[in-house]
């Protein structure tokens, strides 16, 4: 008669994976018990040999080269996205001419640095923005959107405070130009919020609002960061 500690074939199968994966320490059965059973049981020994062979083969599986057309498709999709990202920046007042208008008094080199850095930062913010999971409930999407909006709004508040400290470094013309750009973005924010008031769950309006908020964060962050440290002769990093 088998007691609870007898290693039957059925019990061995339960712990065979742990034995083969060398995870048997701490289990109720000793490695020596398993090996004794395997020595005396042909079917369990055959099973163990097959599972060992499977494990060994699985570890030798190699990378698989994708077909060439996959790279072409990736390249085409990336190329298609780049103008769309740029046009969003322009629509929200981030065109190169707009930046130069804002920063002319700092010199054209400084303006170019800011445009390049603004584009990179803006792209990051656009993609960093939380996206609703495909399986999320409608309620979950609303909460996620509200959290994102709150995050941007908080960042804007803190950056506006910092901008006020730095603004004395701007001459009147630059300050006015900066104000005009911010007004443009604020108008886009207002439009999106009006649309959401009419239709709260509208994904296009939500996206527009988050785009506009992220643009304002980018503008303020770069303004604060650059105003204090750009000096004539700054080396220009171009793409």
């Amino acid at each position, binding site marked *: 008669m088998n007691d609870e500690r007898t290693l039957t*074939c059925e019990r061995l*199968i339960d712990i065979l*994976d*742990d034995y083969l994966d060398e995870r048997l320490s701490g289990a109720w059965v000793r490695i020596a018990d398993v090996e004794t059973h395997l020595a005396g049981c*042909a*079917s369990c020994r*055959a*099973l163990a*040999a*097959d*599972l060992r*062979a*499977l*494990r*060994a*083969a*699985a*570890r*030798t*599986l*190699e*990378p*698989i*080269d*994708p*077909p060439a057309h*996959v*790279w072409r*498709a*990736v*390249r085409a*999709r*990336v190329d298609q*996205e*780049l103008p769309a990202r740029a046009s969003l920046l322009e629509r929200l007042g981030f065109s190169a001419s707009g930046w130069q208008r804002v920063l002319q008094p700092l010199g054209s080199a400084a303006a170019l640095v800011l445009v*390049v850095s603004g584009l*990179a*930062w803006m*792209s*990051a913010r*656009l*993609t*960093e923005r939380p996206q609703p*999971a*495909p*399986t999320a409930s409608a309620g979950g999407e609303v909460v996620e959107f509200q959290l994102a909006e709150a995050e941007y709004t908080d960042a804007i508040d803190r950056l506006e405070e910092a901008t006020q400290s730095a603004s004395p470094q701007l001459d009147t013309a630059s300050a006015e130009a900066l104000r005009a750009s911010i007004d443009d973005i604020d108008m886009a924010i207002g439009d999106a919020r009006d649309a959401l008031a009419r239709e709260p769950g509208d994904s296009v309006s939500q996206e527009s609002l988050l785009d506009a908020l992220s643009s304002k964060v980018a503008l303020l962050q770069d303004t604060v960061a650059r105003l204090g440290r750009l000096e004539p002769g700054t080396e220009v990093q171009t*793409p």
Partner: protein
Amino acid sequence: MSADDLELARRCREGDAAAFETVYRTHAGRLFGLLTRMTGSAQDAEDLLQDVFVQAHRKLALFRGESSLGTWLYRLAVNQCLDHLRGKQSRMARTTDSLDAAEAPEPAAAVPVLPQPIARIDLDRAIAQLPDGCRAAFVLHDVEGLDHREVGAALGISEGTSKSQVHKARMKLRALLGGGVRRGALEAV
């Protein structure tokens, strides 16, 4: 993490197409292997690989070099693949159920039934025939080398469920490969 990774990421962010192609050529094979085995479908894997690299291009501005670029891309690919598999969740449940129902007592062959060694191409074809749930666990554990805790975290299942899914996959693979894998059926995969 290497300085080369950060430099490549910087060049990609600045629109350097050659740098992005280098990233693709370096990592696409490993990721395509992972995606093909996780999904069991070369077509799905092609679509997912595209999505992974398009997403990577968008997110490279966020790459800070805390891990290697390869690890960063690997995580993107696993997440992308799991989203894809979750989209098929109801079908996964059905196929896993059918596997459970079909699972007979372990075959009691007195000698090993698998060829030694197992040909990689046969194993890949057999993996493609596994139900989605246990295939994902098997690939992450036995092929990619994650432990059961990591597999559980990746798949949103417990460590115990990961063990059980890997066991099911191994037994199913033994049956598929040991029974003389039907060439016609496998080649159609």
